[in-house]
């Protein structure tokens, strides 16, 4: 029964063993029809057998990447992105090795002792100072596997990497204050206010440029 393929994907997701390798395909269960899933699984079996038979695995890799792209394109098409006008532009008026860089992640990172984020539509942000230690990082987010930043914040909030780059003179400096929020915000008005407030704080700390890392 093709109808069972969706629950098979749910089971695979709940199993959790291949969470990271499957992360780009995980939304397949939300966007694919029964016919799409039947096509995917039958083609997967054929491609896998073919790869083993010929010991040529590149085709299987291409197949999986095409389905990742297909899946994420469907997610994007279903998503309600706001209408955007012309893209704003502020040229960096100095070189990166003279610039002060701040970090902002939407991966739901905050500090032990701070209020955790709501899992959806939270219109707030948290300040995360440079020098923050890994054991003080907490994460609240439902859209991805938070085990990554709980083990090493630098996958999303690279304080340690920027401190290294600063020490080596590759960047001017890392800002004293950096920021986390939870990017699961379907209602756009909840997202449009705080960046202006953060902009004031960035100006106070003489920040030139911002590196943004969505989960």
């Amino acid at each position, binding site marked *: 029964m093709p109808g069972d393929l969706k629950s098979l994907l749910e089971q695979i997701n709940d199993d959790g063993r291949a969470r*990271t*390798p499957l*992360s*780009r395909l*995980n939304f397949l269960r939300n966007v694919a029809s029964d016919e799409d899933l039947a096509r995917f699984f039958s083609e997967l079996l054929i491609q896998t057998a073919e790869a083993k038979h010929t010991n040529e695995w590149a085709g299987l890799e291409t197949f999986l*990447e095409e389905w*990742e792209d297909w899946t*994420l*394109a469907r*997610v*994007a*098409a279903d*998503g309600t*992105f*706001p209408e*955007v006008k012309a*893209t*704003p*532009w*502020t*040229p*960096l008026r100095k070189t*990166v090795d003279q*610039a002060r*860089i701040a970090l*902002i992640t939407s*991966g739901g990172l905050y500090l032990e002792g701070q209020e955790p984020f709501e899992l959806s539509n939270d219109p707030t942000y948290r300040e995360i100072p440079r020098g923050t230690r890994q054991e003080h990082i907490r994460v609240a987010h439902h*859209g*991805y*596997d*938070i085990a*990554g*930043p709980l*083990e090493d914040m*630098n*996958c*999303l909030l*690279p304080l*340690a*990497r*920027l401190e290294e*780059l600063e020490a080596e003179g*590759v*960047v001017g400096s890392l800002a004293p204050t950096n920021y986390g929020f939870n*990017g699961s915000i379907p209602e*756009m008005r909840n*997202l*449009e206010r705080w*960046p*202006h407030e953060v*902009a004031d704080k*960035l100006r106070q700390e003489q920040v*030139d*440029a*911002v*590196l*943004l*890392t*969505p*989960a």
Partner: protein
Amino acid sequence: MGVVARILEEEGFSTVIVVTFRQAAEAMRPPRAAYVRFPIGLTLGAPGAAAQQRVVIEDALGLLENAREPGDLRILPYQWQQVDYEKILATRRASRR
């Protein structure tokens, strides 16, 4: 996050965003973006993979200087962990000297 990038850019900051979800960046057209085909949530690299994180960050920061026009979206070529990131960093260090 594209919305945040656009607001901060309007506020007078240069921004660059690293994305694993290319189609979202194509829809939102943030000022400067670098795309990596990495697992969702491991935007800069694997936990503990300092060299991998560093290579992606350097490429993103490079866009602050060399992005050509608003909405510049670069496709980074890295295949998750099948890349010798240490070697890339060593080459870059040598060329900086």
